[in-house]
Protein backbone atom coordinates (compact mmCIF):
# COMPACT_ATOMS: atom_id res chain seq x y z
CA UNK A 1 0.00 0.00 0.00
CA UNK A 2 2.95 2.26 0.51
CA UNK A 3 3.20 3.17 -3.14
CA UNK A 4 -0.23 4.77 -2.99
CA UNK A 5 0.45 6.96 -0.04
CA UNK A 6 1.48 9.85 -2.26
CA UNK A 7 -2.13 10.65 -3.06
CA UNK A 8 -3.90 9.07 -0.14
CA UNK A 9 -3.66 9.83 3.48
CA UNK A 10 -3.42 6.41 5.06
CA UNK A 11 -6.02 5.76 7.68
CA UNK A 12 -8.22 2.90 8.83
CA UNK A 13 -10.04 2.70 5.54
CA UNK A 14 -7.03 3.38 3.43
CA UNK A 15 -7.38 0.22 1.43
CA UNK A 16 -10.95 0.93 0.49
CA UNK A 17 -10.35 4.60 -0.02
CA UNK A 18 -7.30 3.83 -2.09
CA UNK A 19 -7.49 4.51 -5.76
CA UNK A 20 -7.14 1.81 -8.32
CA UNK A 21 -4.35 3.31 -10.33
CA UNK A 22 -0.84 2.10 -9.78
CA UNK A 23 0.48 5.12 -11.67
CA UNK A 24 -1.92 7.95 -10.84
CA UNK A 25 0.28 10.44 -12.60
CA UNK A 26 -0.15 8.63 -15.90
CA UNK A 27 -3.87 8.51 -15.44
CA UNK A 28 -4.01 12.21 -14.68
CA UNK A 29 -2.15 12.92 -17.88
CA UNK A 30 -4.43 10.72 -19.95
CA UNK A 31 -7.59 12.13 -18.41
CA UNK A 32 -6.31 15.64 -18.87
CA UNK A 33 -5.44 14.95 -22.50
CA UNK A 34 -8.89 13.49 -22.98
CA UNK A 35 -10.58 16.63 -21.71
CA UNK A 36 -8.17 18.75 -23.71
CA UNK A 37 -9.15 16.95 -26.91
CA UNK A 38 -12.79 17.63 -26.09
CA UNK A 39 -12.00 21.32 -25.70
CA UNK A 40 -10.15 21.34 -29.03
CA UNK A 41 -13.08 19.67 -30.75
CA UNK A 42 -15.39 22.45 -29.59
CA UNK A 43 -13.32 24.94 -31.51
CA UNK A 44 -13.15 22.62 -34.49
CA UNK A 45 -16.93 22.28 -34.46
CA UNK A 46 -17.34 26.04 -34.28
CA UNK A 47 -15.07 26.44 -37.26
CA UNK A 48 -16.98 23.81 -39.28
CA UNK A 49 -20.28 25.47 -38.54
CA UNK A 50 -18.95 28.72 -39.93
CA UNK A 51 -17.98 26.78 -43.07
CA UNK A 52 -21.60 25.68 -43.70
CA UNK A 53 -20.99 22.33 -42.05
CA UNK A 54 -20.05 18.87 -43.24
CA UNK A 55 -21.88 15.87 -41.74
CA UNK A 56 -18.92 13.50 -41.47
CA UNK A 57 -16.60 16.03 -39.84
CA UNK A 58 -19.41 17.19 -37.56
CA UNK A 59 -20.04 13.62 -36.49
CA UNK A 60 -16.38 12.93 -35.85
CA UNK A 61 -15.92 16.16 -33.92
CA UNK A 62 -18.96 15.37 -31.80
CA UNK A 63 -17.44 11.94 -31.25
CA UNK A 64 -14.22 13.50 -30.03
CA UNK A 65 -16.12 15.98 -27.87
CA UNK A 66 -18.41 13.49 -26.18
CA UNK A 67 -15.86 10.70 -26.23
CA UNK A 68 -13.21 12.95 -24.66
CA UNK A 69 -15.49 14.03 -21.85
CA UNK A 70 -16.88 10.53 -21.40
CA UNK A 71 -13.59 8.71 -21.40
CA UNK A 72 -12.04 11.27 -19.13
CA UNK A 73 -14.87 11.08 -16.61
CA UNK A 74 -14.99 7.30 -16.64
CA UNK A 75 -11.22 6.95 -16.27
CA UNK A 76 -11.22 9.50 -13.48
CA UNK A 77 -13.94 7.58 -11.68
CA UNK A 78 -12.37 4.23 -12.32
CA UNK A 79 -8.76 4.94 -11.47
CA UNK A 80 -8.62 8.06 -9.33
CA UNK A 81 -11.56 7.65 -6.99
CA UNK A 82 -11.97 5.26 -4.04
CA UNK A 83 -12.07 1.80 -5.48
CA UNK A 84 -13.86 0.15 -2.60
CA UNK A 85 -15.54 -2.22 -2.59
CA UNK A 86 -18.11 -0.66 -0.36
CA UNK A 87 -21.22 -2.22 1.02
CA UNK A 88 -24.53 -1.09 2.36
CA UNK A 89 -27.19 -3.17 3.98
CA UNK A 90 -30.38 -3.55 2.05
CA UNK A 91 -33.40 -1.92 3.51
CA UNK A 92 -35.98 -4.36 4.69
CA UNK A 93 -38.83 -3.97 2.26
CA UNK A 94 -41.62 -5.62 4.16
CA UNK A 95 -42.76 -6.10 7.73
CA UNK A 96 -45.86 -7.68 9.13
CA UNK A 97 -46.23 -4.85 11.57
CA UNK A 98 -46.53 -2.33 8.77
CA UNK A 99 -48.93 -4.51 6.88
CA UNK A 100 -51.17 -4.82 9.91
CA UNK A 101 -51.10 -1.11 10.58
CA UNK A 102 -51.95 -0.43 6.95
CA UNK A 103 -54.97 -2.70 6.90
CA UNK A 104 -56.11 -1.32 10.25
CA UNK A 105 -55.98 2.22 8.94
CA UNK A 106 -57.70 1.28 5.72
CA UNK A 107 -60.49 -0.58 7.49
CA UNK A 108 -61.04 2.29 9.88
CA UNK A 109 -61.48 4.65 6.96
CA UNK A 110 -63.69 2.25 5.11
CA UNK A 111 -66.01 1.89 8.05
CA UNK A 112 -66.14 5.68 8.31
CA UNK A 113 -67.03 5.95 4.61
CA UNK A 114 -69.71 3.38 4.13
CA UNK A 115 -70.60 2.07 7.56
CA UNK A 116 -74.01 3.67 7.77
CA UNK A 117 -74.09 5.20 4.32
CA UNK A 118 -73.65 2.27 2.01
CA UNK A 119 -76.41 3.57 -0.23
CA UNK A 120 -74.29 6.68 -0.90
CA UNK A 121 -71.39 4.48 -1.92
CA UNK A 122 -73.63 2.59 -4.31
CA UNK A 123 -74.93 5.81 -5.81
CA UNK A 124 -71.37 7.05 -6.23
CA UNK A 125 -70.31 3.89 -8.02
CA UNK A 126 -73.35 4.09 -10.28
CA UNK A 127 -72.70 7.73 -11.14
CA UNK A 128 -69.06 7.22 -12.01
CA UNK A 129 -69.84 4.09 -14.01
CA UNK A 130 -72.47 5.90 -16.06
CA UNK A 131 -70.10 8.79 -16.50
CA UNK A 132 -67.55 6.44 -18.02
CA UNK A 133 -70.15 5.00 -20.37
CA UNK A 134 -71.38 8.38 -21.58
CA UNK A 135 -67.84 9.63 -22.11
CA UNK A 136 -67.31 6.70 -24.46
CA UNK A 137 -70.20 7.89 -26.57
CA UNK A 138 -68.27 10.45 -28.67
CA UNK A 139 -66.25 7.54 -30.00
CA UNK A 140 -69.44 6.68 -31.84
CA UNK A 141 -68.49 9.45 -34.27
CA UNK A 142 -65.84 7.13 -35.60
CA UNK A 143 -68.58 5.22 -37.34
CA UNK A 144 -69.39 8.32 -39.39
CA UNK A 145 -65.94 8.13 -40.88
CA UNK A 146 -65.84 4.38 -40.61
CA UNK A 147 -65.87 1.76 -43.27
CA UNK A 148 -69.31 1.93 -44.81
CA UNK A 149 -70.73 -1.08 -46.58
CA UNK A 150 -70.54 0.67 -49.96
CA UNK A 151 -67.30 2.49 -49.09
CA UNK A 152 -63.83 2.14 -50.54
CA UNK A 153 -63.02 -0.81 -48.32
CA UNK A 154 -65.46 -2.87 -50.32
CA UNK A 155 -65.72 -1.16 -53.69
CA UNK A 156 -63.35 0.54 -56.07
CA UNK A 157 -64.03 3.06 -58.82
CA UNK A 158 -63.81 0.35 -61.44
CA UNK A 159 -67.20 0.06 -63.12
CA UNK A 160 -68.34 -1.37 -66.43
CA UNK A 161 -67.04 0.65 -69.35
CA UNK A 162 -64.50 2.72 -67.43
CA UNK A 163 -61.50 3.66 -69.52
CA UNK A 164 -58.08 2.43 -68.41
CA UNK A 165 -55.57 5.26 -68.06
CA UNK A 166 -51.97 5.37 -66.97
CA UNK A 167 -50.54 7.58 -64.25
CA UNK A 168 -50.53 10.61 -66.54
CA UNK A 169 -54.20 10.07 -67.43
CA UNK A 170 -53.38 8.75 -70.93
CA UNK A 171 -55.76 6.06 -72.16
CA UNK A 172 -54.31 2.65 -72.91
CA UNK A 173 -54.58 1.45 -76.47
CA UNK A 174 -54.57 -2.17 -77.49
CA UNK A 175 -51.16 -1.55 -79.06
CA UNK A 176 -49.58 0.19 -76.08
CA UNK A 177 -47.92 -2.85 -74.55
CA UNK A 178 -45.74 -5.41 -76.20
CA UNK A 179 -46.00 -8.98 -75.05
CA UNK A 180 -44.05 -9.14 -71.79
CA UNK A 181 -44.88 -5.58 -70.84
CA UNK A 182 -46.67 -4.26 -67.77
CA UNK A 183 -48.23 -0.94 -66.81
CA UNK A 184 -49.93 0.48 -63.74
CA UNK A 185 -53.39 1.70 -64.71
CA UNK A 186 -56.28 3.51 -63.04
CA UNK A 187 -59.93 4.10 -63.79
CA UNK A 188 -60.29 7.27 -65.84
CA UNK A 189 -60.33 10.27 -63.53
CA UNK A 190 -58.97 8.48 -60.46
CA UNK A 191 -55.23 8.40 -60.98
CA UNK A 192 -54.66 9.20 -57.30
CA UNK A 193 -56.78 6.38 -55.91
CA UNK A 194 -54.47 3.99 -54.11
CA UNK A 195 -57.02 1.19 -53.97
CA UNK A 196 -57.86 1.38 -57.66
CA UNK A 197 -54.32 0.77 -58.86
CA UNK A 198 -54.26 -2.14 -61.21
CA UNK A 199 -51.41 -3.85 -62.96
CA UNK A 200 -52.03 -4.31 -66.66
CA UNK A 201 -49.99 -7.09 -68.19
CA UNK A 202 -49.72 -8.25 -71.73
CA UNK A 203 -49.02 -11.94 -71.38
CA UNK A 204 -49.63 -13.00 -74.99
CA UNK A 205 -51.06 -11.80 -78.24
CA UNK A 206 -54.25 -13.82 -77.89
CA UNK A 207 -56.71 -14.07 -74.98
CA UNK A 208 -55.45 -15.86 -71.87
CA UNK A 209 -57.48 -17.63 -69.20
CA UNK A 210 -56.83 -19.98 -66.31
CA UNK A 211 -56.82 -23.63 -67.42
CA UNK A 212 -59.97 -24.39 -65.44
CA UNK A 213 -61.86 -21.27 -66.54
CA UNK A 214 -61.59 -21.05 -70.33
CA UNK A 215 -64.69 -18.83 -70.32
CA UNK A 216 -62.61 -16.03 -68.83
CA UNK A 217 -60.83 -15.56 -72.13
CA UNK A 218 -63.32 -12.83 -72.84
CA UNK A 219 -61.76 -10.83 -69.98
CA UNK A 220 -58.44 -10.82 -71.79
CA UNK A 221 -58.58 -9.00 -75.13
CA UNK A 222 -55.41 -9.55 -77.16
CA UNK A 223 -53.67 -11.23 -74.26
CA UNK A 224 -54.11 -8.33 -71.84
CA UNK A 225 -54.68 -9.22 -68.19
CA UNK A 226 -55.39 -6.83 -65.34
CA UNK A 227 -55.01 -7.63 -61.67
CA UNK A 228 -55.44 -5.51 -58.59
CA UNK A 229 -52.01 -4.19 -57.64
CA UNK A 230 -52.87 -4.31 -53.93
CA UNK A 231 -51.55 -7.51 -52.39
CA UNK A 232 -54.11 -9.68 -50.64
CA UNK A 233 -51.62 -10.24 -47.85
CA UNK A 234 -50.58 -6.87 -46.48
CA UNK A 235 -51.53 -4.43 -49.20
CA UNK A 236 -48.16 -3.73 -50.80
CA UNK A 237 -48.12 -2.90 -54.52
CA UNK A 238 -47.53 -6.14 -56.40
CA UNK A 239 -45.33 -4.60 -59.02
CA UNK A 240 -42.79 -7.25 -59.91
CA UNK A 241 -43.95 -8.80 -63.16
CA UNK A 242 -41.62 -11.64 -64.09
CA UNK A 243 -42.16 -11.81 -67.81
CA UNK A 244 -40.28 -15.06 -68.34
CA UNK A 245 -41.84 -17.03 -65.50
CA UNK A 246 -45.22 -15.30 -65.96
CA UNK A 247 -45.35 -14.62 -62.23
CA UNK A 248 -46.25 -11.60 -60.17
CA UNK A 249 -44.14 -11.05 -57.08
CA UNK A 250 -44.79 -8.79 -54.14
CA UNK A 251 -41.51 -7.21 -53.02
CA UNK A 252 -42.63 -6.86 -49.39
CA UNK A 253 -43.23 -10.45 -48.32
CA UNK A 254 -42.42 -12.39 -51.50
CA UNK A 255 -45.92 -13.62 -52.25
CA UNK A 256 -45.92 -15.04 -55.76
CA UNK A 257 -48.90 -15.16 -58.10
CA UNK A 258 -49.33 -17.07 -61.33
CA UNK A 259 -50.32 -14.70 -64.10
CA UNK A 260 -51.57 -17.44 -66.38
CA UNK A 261 -53.73 -18.98 -63.67
CA UNK A 262 -55.81 -16.01 -62.61
CA UNK A 263 -53.08 -14.74 -60.25
CA UNK A 264 -53.39 -17.85 -58.10
CA UNK A 265 -51.00 -17.86 -55.14
CA UNK A 266 -48.07 -20.17 -55.82
CA UNK A 267 -45.86 -19.09 -52.94
CA UNK A 268 -45.77 -16.87 -49.89
CA UNK A 269 -48.19 -15.68 -47.27
CA UNK A 270 -50.86 -14.15 -49.53
CA UNK A 271 -54.06 -16.08 -48.82
CA UNK A 272 -56.06 -15.25 -51.96
CA UNK A 273 -55.43 -14.63 -55.65
CA UNK A 274 -55.21 -11.02 -56.75
CA UNK A 275 -58.68 -10.03 -57.93
CA UNK A 276 -58.83 -9.87 -61.71
CA UNK A 277 -60.31 -6.91 -63.53
CA UNK A 278 -62.32 -7.99 -66.59
CA UNK A 279 -61.21 -6.08 -69.66
CA UNK A 280 -62.65 -5.29 -73.06
CA UNK A 281 -61.56 -3.43 -76.12
CA UNK A 282 -63.73 -0.55 -77.34
CA UNK A 283 -64.38 0.38 -80.95
CA UNK A 284 -61.40 2.72 -81.08
CA UNK A 285 -59.04 0.08 -79.80
CA UNK A 286 -58.84 1.44 -76.24
CA UNK A 287 -59.01 -0.81 -73.21
CA UNK A 288 -61.93 -0.49 -70.85
CA UNK A 289 -63.11 -2.36 -67.78
CA UNK A 290 -65.75 -4.92 -68.56
CA UNK A 291 -66.89 -4.61 -64.97
CA UNK A 292 -65.62 -3.89 -61.48
CA UNK A 293 -63.71 -6.25 -59.25
CA UNK A 294 -65.91 -9.11 -58.15
CA UNK A 295 -64.73 -8.89 -54.56
CA UNK A 296 -63.16 -6.41 -52.15
CA UNK A 297 -59.54 -5.88 -53.15
CA UNK A 298 -56.57 -6.05 -50.83
CA UNK A 299 -56.01 -7.77 -47.52
CA UNK A 300 -58.75 -9.37 -45.50
CA UNK A 301 -60.64 -7.78 -42.63
CA UNK A 302 -63.27 -8.83 -40.17
CA UNK A 303 -66.43 -7.77 -41.95
CA UNK A 304 -65.25 -8.84 -45.39
CA UNK A 305 -67.31 -11.99 -45.25
CA UNK A 306 -66.61 -15.62 -44.55
Amino acid sequence: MSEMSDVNQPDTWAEHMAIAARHPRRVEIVVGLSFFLAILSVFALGWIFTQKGQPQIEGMMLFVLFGGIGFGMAAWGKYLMPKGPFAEEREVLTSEENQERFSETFQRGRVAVEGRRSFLAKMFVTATGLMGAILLFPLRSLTDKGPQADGPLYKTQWKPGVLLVDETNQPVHIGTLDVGGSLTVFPHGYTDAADDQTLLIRAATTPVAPPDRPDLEKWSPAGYLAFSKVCTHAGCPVGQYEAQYQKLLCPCHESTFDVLDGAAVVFGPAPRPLPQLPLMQDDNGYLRARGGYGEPIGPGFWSRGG
Partner: protein
Amino acid sequence: MARRAGAVAAVVALGIGLSLVVFGSGARAQNSESSTSAQGQAPPQPVGDGPLGKTGGTAYNDNALTPEQLTGRQLFVQTCSSCHGVNAEGTARAPTLTGLGPATVDFWVRTGRMPLEKPTQQAIRKNPLLSAKQAREIARYVASLAPGGVQIPRPNLAGADLQQGGELFRLNCATCHSFVGVGGALSYGAYAPSLKPDQPIDIAEAIRTGPGNMPRFSTAQMSNKDMNDIIKYVRYITRPDDRGGLSLGHVGPVTEGFVGIVFGVGLLMLAAFWIGDRARPEPAVTGHGHE
Protein backbone atom coordinates in the same frame (compact mmCIF):
# COMPACT_ATOMS: atom_id res chain seq x y z
CA MET B 1 -25.03 -6.90 -54.92
CA ALA B 2 -22.63 -4.69 -53.16
CA ARG B 3 -19.87 -6.61 -51.54
CA ARG B 4 -20.18 -4.87 -48.21
CA ALA B 5 -23.84 -5.71 -47.88
CA GLY B 6 -23.02 -9.21 -48.90
CA ALA B 7 -20.42 -9.60 -46.24
CA VAL B 8 -22.84 -8.37 -43.62
CA ALA B 9 -25.57 -10.64 -44.85
CA ALA B 10 -23.11 -13.51 -44.74
CA VAL B 11 -22.67 -13.12 -41.04
CA VAL B 12 -26.41 -12.75 -40.58
CA ALA B 13 -26.99 -15.91 -42.52
CA LEU B 14 -24.35 -17.91 -40.76
CA GLY B 15 -26.84 -19.36 -38.30
CA ILE B 16 -28.73 -21.20 -40.99
CA GLY B 17 -25.75 -22.06 -43.08
CA LEU B 18 -25.67 -25.82 -43.35
CA SER B 19 -29.36 -26.51 -43.62
CA LEU B 20 -29.63 -23.79 -46.20
CA VAL B 21 -27.02 -25.43 -48.34
CA VAL B 22 -28.99 -28.64 -48.23
CA PHE B 23 -32.29 -27.01 -49.03
CA GLY B 24 -30.69 -24.59 -51.41
CA SER B 25 -29.27 -27.27 -53.63
CA GLY B 26 -32.63 -28.95 -53.77
CA ALA B 27 -34.22 -25.70 -54.74
CA ARG B 28 -31.62 -25.13 -57.39
CA ALA B 29 -32.58 -28.33 -59.11
CA GLN B 30 -36.13 -27.14 -59.00
CA ASN B 31 -35.13 -23.77 -60.37
CA SER B 32 -33.42 -25.15 -63.36
CA GLU B 33 -36.50 -27.18 -64.07
CA SER B 34 -38.77 -24.22 -63.93
CA SER B 35 -36.50 -22.03 -65.98
CA THR B 36 -36.08 -24.60 -68.67
CA SER B 37 -39.75 -25.28 -68.86
CA ALA B 38 -40.37 -21.59 -69.12
CA GLN B 39 -38.09 -21.48 -72.10
CA GLY B 40 -39.53 -24.61 -73.61
CA GLN B 41 -36.27 -26.49 -73.40
CA ALA B 42 -35.28 -30.07 -72.90
CA PRO B 43 -33.52 -31.07 -69.67
CA PRO B 44 -30.15 -29.43 -69.39
CA GLN B 45 -27.08 -31.13 -70.73
CA PRO B 46 -23.49 -30.09 -70.98
CA VAL B 47 -22.70 -27.94 -73.93
CA GLY B 48 -19.44 -27.80 -75.75
CA ASP B 49 -18.23 -24.27 -75.93
CA GLY B 50 -15.75 -24.48 -78.76
CA PRO B 51 -16.40 -23.46 -82.36
CA LEU B 52 -17.74 -26.80 -83.35
CA GLY B 53 -17.83 -27.80 -86.95
CA LYS B 54 -21.56 -27.90 -87.12
CA THR B 55 -21.84 -25.69 -90.16
CA GLY B 56 -22.11 -28.54 -92.60
CA GLY B 57 -25.46 -29.02 -94.22
CA THR B 58 -26.56 -25.42 -94.01
CA ALA B 59 -28.27 -24.00 -97.02
CA TYR B 60 -27.42 -20.41 -96.29
CA ASN B 61 -26.25 -18.40 -99.24
CA ASP B 62 -23.10 -16.60 -98.18
CA ASN B 63 -22.95 -14.67 -101.39
CA ALA B 64 -26.06 -12.66 -100.53
CA LEU B 65 -24.47 -11.14 -97.45
CA THR B 66 -22.71 -7.82 -97.06
CA PRO B 67 -19.18 -8.09 -95.75
CA GLU B 68 -20.30 -7.00 -92.31
CA GLN B 69 -23.06 -9.58 -92.22
CA LEU B 70 -20.57 -12.16 -93.36
CA THR B 71 -18.33 -11.40 -90.39
CA GLY B 72 -21.37 -11.52 -88.17
CA ARG B 73 -22.36 -14.86 -89.56
CA GLN B 74 -18.91 -16.29 -88.95
CA LEU B 75 -18.94 -15.04 -85.39
CA PHE B 76 -22.43 -16.38 -84.85
CA VAL B 77 -21.53 -19.79 -86.13
CA GLN B 78 -18.46 -19.87 -83.94
CA THR B 79 -19.97 -18.71 -80.68
CA CYS B 80 -23.76 -19.01 -80.78
CA SER B 81 -24.82 -21.71 -83.16
CA SER B 82 -24.06 -24.65 -80.90
CA CYS B 83 -27.14 -23.78 -78.87
CA HIS B 84 -29.21 -21.46 -81.01
CA GLY B 85 -28.72 -23.33 -84.26
CA VAL B 86 -26.76 -22.29 -87.29
CA ASN B 87 -29.57 -20.15 -88.61
CA ALA B 88 -30.69 -18.99 -85.18
CA GLU B 89 -33.71 -21.20 -85.50
CA GLY B 90 -33.31 -22.46 -81.93
CA THR B 91 -32.55 -25.91 -80.61
CA ALA B 92 -33.66 -28.03 -77.72
CA ARG B 93 -31.21 -26.08 -75.58
CA ALA B 94 -31.94 -22.51 -76.51
CA PRO B 95 -34.75 -20.48 -78.02
CA THR B 96 -34.94 -19.15 -81.53
CA LEU B 97 -33.54 -15.73 -82.18
CA THR B 98 -35.24 -15.04 -85.46
CA GLY B 99 -37.53 -12.07 -85.43
CA LEU B 100 -36.15 -10.70 -82.17
CA GLY B 101 -34.37 -7.86 -83.82
CA PRO B 102 -30.82 -6.63 -83.27
CA ALA B 103 -31.27 -4.95 -79.87
CA THR B 104 -31.85 -8.21 -78.01
CA VAL B 105 -28.82 -9.94 -79.47
CA ASP B 106 -26.65 -6.90 -79.01
CA PHE B 107 -27.63 -6.59 -75.33
CA TRP B 108 -26.98 -10.21 -74.42
CA VAL B 109 -23.67 -10.49 -76.23
CA ARG B 110 -22.23 -7.08 -75.52
CA THR B 111 -22.87 -7.26 -71.77
CA GLY B 112 -21.15 -10.65 -71.67
CA ARG B 113 -24.32 -12.49 -70.67
CA MET B 114 -23.96 -14.57 -73.83
CA PRO B 115 -22.50 -16.97 -74.65
CA LEU B 116 -23.61 -18.91 -71.61
CA GLU B 117 -21.67 -21.86 -70.29
CA LYS B 118 -24.69 -23.76 -69.10
CA PRO B 119 -28.13 -22.93 -70.41
CA THR B 120 -29.76 -23.55 -67.03
CA GLN B 121 -28.30 -20.66 -65.11
CA GLN B 122 -29.48 -17.09 -65.10
CA ALA B 123 -27.22 -15.21 -67.47
CA ILE B 124 -25.13 -12.74 -65.52
CA ARG B 125 -23.11 -9.82 -66.65
CA LYS B 126 -19.48 -10.75 -67.12
CA ASN B 127 -16.51 -9.69 -69.16
CA PRO B 128 -17.74 -10.01 -72.71
CA LEU B 129 -16.15 -12.63 -74.90
CA LEU B 130 -16.67 -10.49 -77.95
CA SER B 131 -16.06 -6.83 -78.52
CA ALA B 132 -18.90 -4.37 -78.85
CA LYS B 133 -18.22 -4.19 -82.58
CA GLN B 134 -18.40 -7.96 -82.95
CA ALA B 135 -21.61 -8.04 -80.92
CA ARG B 136 -23.08 -5.45 -83.24
CA GLU B 137 -22.08 -7.56 -86.24
CA ILE B 138 -23.75 -10.64 -84.83
CA ALA B 139 -26.84 -8.58 -84.07
CA ARG B 140 -26.98 -7.28 -87.63
CA TYR B 141 -26.56 -10.76 -88.97
CA VAL B 142 -29.35 -12.22 -86.81
CA ALA B 143 -31.60 -9.30 -87.71
CA SER B 144 -31.01 -10.01 -91.37
CA LEU B 145 -32.47 -13.49 -90.96
CA ALA B 146 -35.99 -12.27 -90.31
CA PRO B 147 -37.71 -8.89 -90.35
CA GLY B 148 -39.14 -7.12 -87.33
CA GLY B 149 -38.01 -7.05 -83.73
CA VAL B 150 -36.57 -4.25 -81.68
CA GLN B 151 -34.02 -2.00 -83.30
CA ILE B 152 -31.01 -0.90 -81.29
CA PRO B 153 -32.11 2.23 -79.41
CA ARG B 154 -30.05 5.38 -79.38
CA PRO B 155 -30.14 6.86 -75.90
CA ASN B 156 -29.37 10.54 -75.74
CA LEU B 157 -28.89 11.99 -72.30
CA ALA B 158 -28.58 15.58 -73.47
CA GLY B 159 -31.64 17.34 -72.15
CA ALA B 160 -32.85 14.31 -70.23
CA ASP B 161 -34.91 15.14 -67.15
CA LEU B 162 -33.35 13.66 -64.01
CA GLN B 163 -36.38 14.32 -61.81
CA GLN B 164 -38.89 12.86 -64.23
CA GLY B 165 -36.56 9.90 -64.65
CA GLY B 166 -36.65 9.35 -60.90
CA GLU B 167 -40.44 9.25 -60.88
CA LEU B 168 -40.47 6.73 -63.73
CA PHE B 169 -37.68 4.71 -62.15
CA ARG B 170 -39.54 4.37 -58.86
CA LEU B 171 -42.69 3.33 -60.68
CA ASN B 172 -41.26 0.90 -63.20
CA CYS B 173 -37.80 -0.19 -62.08
CA ALA B 174 -37.33 0.10 -58.30
CA THR B 175 -39.85 -2.67 -57.72
CA CYS B 176 -37.21 -5.20 -58.75
CA HIS B 177 -33.94 -3.28 -58.95
CA SER B 178 -34.51 -1.44 -55.62
CA PHE B 179 -34.42 2.30 -55.00
CA VAL B 180 -30.72 2.61 -55.68
CA GLY B 181 -30.49 -0.02 -58.40
CA VAL B 182 -28.60 -2.64 -56.39
CA GLY B 183 -31.02 -5.30 -57.62
CA GLY B 184 -33.23 -7.65 -55.70
CA ALA B 185 -34.64 -11.13 -55.39
CA LEU B 186 -37.18 -12.64 -57.76
CA SER B 187 -38.89 -16.02 -57.66
CA TYR B 188 -37.19 -19.39 -57.83
CA GLY B 189 -33.63 -18.15 -57.50
CA ALA B 190 -33.85 -15.55 -60.23
CA TYR B 191 -32.86 -12.04 -59.33
CA ALA B 192 -32.80 -8.57 -60.73
CA PRO B 193 -29.17 -7.57 -61.29
CA SER B 194 -27.45 -4.47 -60.08
CA LEU B 195 -27.63 -1.57 -62.52
CA LYS B 196 -24.35 -0.08 -61.44
CA PRO B 197 -22.16 -1.43 -64.28
CA ASP B 198 -24.71 -0.62 -66.99
CA GLN B 199 -23.91 1.90 -69.70
CA PRO B 200 -26.73 4.03 -71.13
CA ILE B 201 -26.99 1.77 -74.17
CA ASP B 202 -27.31 -1.31 -71.93
CA ILE B 203 -30.14 0.25 -69.99
CA ALA B 204 -31.87 1.38 -73.16
CA GLU B 205 -31.68 -2.07 -74.74
CA ALA B 206 -32.90 -3.74 -71.55
CA ILE B 207 -35.88 -1.38 -71.35
CA ARG B 208 -36.84 -2.00 -74.93
CA THR B 209 -36.25 -5.75 -75.10
CA GLY B 210 -37.01 -6.97 -71.59
CA PRO B 211 -34.23 -9.51 -71.13
CA GLY B 212 -35.06 -12.56 -69.03
CA ASN B 213 -37.77 -11.87 -66.50
CA MET B 214 -37.75 -8.15 -67.07
CA PRO B 215 -40.89 -6.70 -68.61
CA ARG B 216 -40.35 -4.91 -71.89
CA PHE B 217 -41.39 -1.35 -72.48
CA SER B 218 -42.47 -0.53 -75.99
CA THR B 219 -42.15 2.92 -77.49
CA ALA B 220 -45.92 3.16 -77.38
CA GLN B 221 -45.83 2.71 -73.62
CA MET B 222 -42.66 4.60 -72.85
CA SER B 223 -41.40 7.30 -75.15
CA ASN B 224 -37.75 7.70 -76.01
CA LYS B 225 -37.70 10.79 -73.83
CA ASP B 226 -38.97 8.79 -70.86
CA MET B 227 -36.30 6.19 -71.58
CA ASN B 228 -33.58 8.83 -71.64
CA ASP B 229 -34.89 10.31 -68.39
CA ILE B 230 -34.76 6.92 -66.72
CA ILE B 231 -31.24 6.27 -67.97
CA LYS B 232 -30.09 9.59 -66.61
CA TYR B 233 -31.58 8.77 -63.21
CA VAL B 234 -30.09 5.26 -63.20
CA ARG B 235 -26.68 6.69 -63.94
CA TYR B 236 -27.14 9.05 -60.98
CA ILE B 237 -28.72 6.75 -58.45
CA THR B 238 -26.19 3.95 -58.88
CA ARG B 239 -23.53 6.48 -57.89
CA PRO B 240 -25.66 8.44 -55.49
CA ASP B 241 -25.10 11.34 -53.16
CA ASP B 242 -24.21 9.47 -49.96
CA ARG B 243 -23.68 12.56 -47.92
CA GLY B 244 -24.78 10.73 -44.80
CA GLY B 245 -21.57 8.72 -44.79
CA LEU B 246 -20.86 5.09 -45.57
CA SER B 247 -23.59 3.62 -47.73
CA LEU B 248 -23.76 0.29 -45.85
CA GLY B 249 -24.46 -1.46 -49.13
CA HIS B 250 -27.64 0.48 -49.89
CA VAL B 251 -29.85 -2.37 -48.78
CA GLY B 252 -31.62 -0.43 -46.08
CA PRO B 253 -32.42 -1.43 -42.52
CA VAL B 254 -30.91 -4.92 -42.64
CA THR B 255 -27.34 -3.68 -42.62
CA GLU B 256 -28.23 -0.61 -40.57
CA GLY B 257 -29.55 -2.80 -37.79
CA PHE B 258 -26.49 -5.02 -37.98
CA VAL B 259 -24.11 -2.07 -37.80
CA GLY B 260 -26.11 -0.49 -34.98
CA ILE B 261 -25.98 -3.63 -32.87
CA VAL B 262 -22.40 -4.63 -33.59
CA PHE B 263 -20.68 -1.26 -33.71
CA GLY B 264 -23.08 0.69 -31.54
CA VAL B 265 -24.23 -1.58 -28.77
CA GLY B 266 -21.20 -3.86 -29.14
CA LEU B 267 -18.63 -1.12 -28.63
CA LEU B 268 -20.63 0.33 -25.77
CA MET B 269 -20.64 -3.11 -24.16
CA LEU B 270 -16.87 -3.18 -24.48
CA ALA B 271 -16.77 0.24 -22.86
CA ALA B 272 -18.93 -1.07 -20.02
CA PHE B 273 -16.60 -4.03 -19.77
CA TRP B 274 -13.76 -1.61 -19.28
CA ILE B 275 -15.53 0.66 -16.83
CA GLY B 276 -17.11 -2.07 -14.76
CA ASP B 277 -15.70 -5.03 -12.94
CA ARG B 278 -15.69 -8.59 -14.11
CA ALA B 279 -17.30 -11.21 -11.95
CA ARG B 280 -14.03 -12.97 -11.22
CA PRO B 281 -10.52 -11.76 -10.72
CA GLU B 282 -8.02 -12.25 -13.45
CA PRO B 283 -6.61 -15.75 -13.42
CA ALA B 284 -3.36 -16.06 -11.62
CA VAL B 285 -0.35 -17.24 -13.49
CA THR B 286 0.87 -20.11 -11.39
CA GLY B 287 2.87 -23.19 -11.91
CA HIS B 288 1.59 -26.70 -12.27
CA GLY B 289 -0.19 -28.44 -9.47
CA HIS B 290 1.64 -28.86 -6.19
CA GLU B 291 5.08 -27.49 -6.13
